[in-house]
């Protein structure tokens, strides 16, 4: 074994390229069954997250005295809020779609789990944002939320009436966790491929009968034997 192959960088590179070769990491085609609106909500959630990070970065640069007083501050504050609203709107529909097509099939358990945990982590990320607004709305939400936090025994560690702690959680710890989970989720989707829909034959709704003529092949159907979708559309 050469000295280069013994180095950890070479081993890490070979393992990364083996798991995600360039044609899988940045594909130029997708399976034909992706031609449905239900498959767009993942990337819509991702686009909303990009807007959240971008507008939040601007808000963190300028501070509450800017986003509450100036017109431009109001604008970016609104962009940040409505990006969050759209993020959860699209994410819930993405979750419903993937749940009903059992997206954990075909060795995709980690894809499902990273997505579910990202959703769970995104909720306190939004909550810490609502209590960091520095207005009466934030005071109302924090005084209501503290009872919930105390009821489940985490109030001593996660004090929603402590602006400094909530702001740190909101602009660093929780966004970093969400972005890391989303990145892992997307890389796992690239590795395992988009989950194919259920086929009617799998559900027993197309019983084979001798009298039936041979059905014409469905161009939109990818057989289960090809879960990563080798039959791809250009």
């Amino acid at each position, binding site marked *: 074994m050469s000295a280069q192959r013994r180095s950890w960088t070479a081993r890490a590179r070979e393992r990364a390229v083996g798991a995600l070769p360039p044609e899988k990491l940045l594909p130029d085609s997708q399976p034909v069954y992706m*031609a*449905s*609106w*239900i498959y*767009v*909500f993942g990337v819509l959630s991702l686009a909303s997250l990009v807007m959240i990070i971008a507008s939040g970065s601007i808000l963190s640069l300028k501070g509450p005295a800017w986003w509450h007083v100036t*017109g431009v501050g*109001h604008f970016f504050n609104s962009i940040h809020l409505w990006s969050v609203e759209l993020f959860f*709107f699209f994410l*819930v*529909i993405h979750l*419903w*779609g993937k749940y009903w097509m059992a997206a954990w099939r075909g060795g995709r358990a980690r894809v499902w789990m990273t997505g579910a945990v990202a959703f769970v982590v995104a909720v306190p990320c939004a909550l810490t944002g609502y209590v960091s607004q520095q207005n009466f709305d934030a005071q109302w939400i924090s005084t209501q939320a503290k009872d919930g936090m105390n009821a489940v025994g985490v109030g001593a560690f996660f004090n929603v009436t402590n602006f400094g702690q909530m702001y740190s959680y909101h602009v660093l710890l929780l966004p970093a966790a969400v972005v890391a989970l989303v990145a892992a989720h997307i890389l796992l989707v690239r590795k395992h491929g988009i989950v194919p829909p259920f086929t009617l034959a799998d559900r027993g709704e197309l019983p084979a009968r001798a009298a039936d003529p041979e059905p014409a092949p469905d161009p*939109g159907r990818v057989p289960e034997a090809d879960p990563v979708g080798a039959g791809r559309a250009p």
Partner: protein
Amino acid sequence: MSFPAAAVFNLNHPAHTVHWHFFSMSASNVVVIVLMLVVFAVAILAPFPRYRGTE
């Protein structure tokens, strides 16, 4: 108030809520949930433009 958008919706009142037996939720949340269900149904039923037709 100098910000013109503040006059579009009057928010200076208690929130409207939907009550039904034990169920209680703000009307705005009910609207958002119903809208999500509608969009979900449309996303499943509406044809995808690229594959509309005889392709």
